[in-house]
């Protein structure tokens, strides 16, 4: 039988390979990646400015070192163009084909890009890889003022980090409060106050309409009539699971690549995990689900079919100016938010009777309750 091919060398691809090698040292393993295959921690991208880390400093292992450790072949800077599930082959952009016995898609997600009027629109950057981070670092070299589009989790983390590096930061978005998609409004307001106290400015309930070049920088014209001047612009308006290869190969896709709890796609012998995945209806683009998925899938690939389970997985938002922990209630969960002030922030608990369904803690005082509350929320899957 031919071996296992993994597309992608992010946390998903590499963690799966490590877990698999703990169980099976024989089956040939090939990883293919469009990037340089260096192993790095993506969450560190949004706290690397304040500590002034360059892109090289974020690498913990080179692709060669990973290949040695994993006893795997790693093809770097090779993009997969198509998958032929009938022939069990992946075709690379340069024309070469690889046969697979089992195939795993760990291709991640792509930043959503919005379009704007004006001659500065093409200068908007997103950061979803180490290479993106390098480009953005160059763009903010010597720049004292950065505009961040998108007041969500990643936008707030970057805003805090850029502010921590001594820059002026303006954050813009249509939400009524930061982290609008994850937390109730009162919690979002507390986060906003905490970040404003650190000197970050918010322009909410409005969107960027135009971006024009002005002197060496840009002028952003907002829908509410305000303007913001900045030397660089970061977009953090969300990620979309990369479903292209899967869709073109005829696999079932929805918001992400559709998977059952064994992480199997609709095609025989093809699996997926990570930011590209939709597991039992859930798209959860965080590290913790990847670790659980990788351990389950490694067992399945080693011959012991295993369903993934997710425990409660509170997300820690890396905003040191106002720390936040979020354990969102399950979609459609019934209950009510109860919100109280604690120190500088809030404690918000979603419950139905005695049953805690989720929580949000904001501010240094409130987050101390993380451990205790995490024990009360139900497992995610």
């Amino acid at each position, binding site marked *: 039988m031919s071996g296992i091919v993994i597309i992608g060398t992010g946390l998903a691809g590499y*963690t799966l390979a490590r877990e698999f090698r703990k169980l099976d040292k024989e089956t040939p393993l090939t990883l293919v990646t469009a990037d340089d295959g260096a192993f790095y921690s993506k969450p560190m991208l949004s706290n690397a400015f304040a500590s002034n880390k360059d892109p090289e400093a974020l690498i913990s292992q080179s692709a060669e070192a990973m290949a040695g450790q994993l006893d795997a072949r790693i093809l770097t800077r090779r993009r997969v163009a198509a998958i032929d599930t009938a022939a069990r082959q992946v075709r690379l952009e340069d024309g070469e084909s690889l046969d697979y016995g089992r195939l795993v898609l760990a291709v991640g997600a792509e930043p959503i890009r919005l379009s704007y009027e004006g001659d500065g629109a093409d200068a908007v950057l997103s950061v979803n890889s180490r290479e993106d981070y390098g480009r953005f670092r160059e763009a903010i070299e010597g720049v004292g003022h950065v505009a961040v589009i998108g007041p969500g989790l990643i936008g707030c983390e970057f805003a805090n980090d850029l502010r921590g590096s001594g820059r002026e930061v303006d954050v813009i978005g249509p939400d009524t409060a930061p982290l609008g998609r994850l937390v109730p409004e009162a919690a979002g307001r507390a986060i906003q106050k905490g970040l404003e106290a650190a000197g970050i400015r918010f322009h909410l309930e409005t969107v960027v309409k135009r971006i024009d070049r002005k002197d060496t920088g840009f002028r952003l014209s907002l829908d509410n009539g305000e303007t913001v001047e900045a030397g660089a612009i970061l977009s953090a308006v969300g990620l979309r699971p990369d479903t292209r290869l899967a869709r073109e190969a005829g696999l079932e896709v929805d918001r992400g690549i559709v998977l059952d709890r064994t992480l199997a796609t609709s095609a025989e012998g093809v699996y997926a995990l990570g930011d590209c995945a939709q597991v039992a209806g859930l798209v959860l683009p965080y590290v913790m689900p*990847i*670790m659980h998925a990788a351990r389950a899938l490694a067992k399945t690939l080693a011959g012991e079919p295993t369903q993934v389970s997710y425990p409660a997985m509170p997300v*820690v938002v890396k905003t040191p100016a106002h720390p936040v922990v979020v354990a969102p209630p399950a979609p459609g969960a019934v209950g009510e938010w109860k919100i109280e002030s604690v120190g500088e922030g809030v404690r918000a608990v979603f419950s139905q009777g005695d049953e805690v369904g989720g929580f949000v803690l904001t501010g240094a005082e409130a987050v101390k309750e993380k451990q205790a509350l995490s024990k009360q929320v139900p497992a995610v899957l």
Partner: protein
Amino acid sequence: MRKWECVVCGFIYDEAVGMPEDGIAAGTRWEDIPENWECPECGVAKADFEMVLVAA
């Protein structure tokens, strides 16, 4: 007493503080934490991604 940082998510384990809620008493040395322990914030295994020593 030392501090260890998770290379993936930045979680800090402080030996002096331990993690009493999770049954790891204050003062527990890194070496004495079981190998099957996982980072409480991102779930990486102790053995896989090594916590790095950040302060003595």
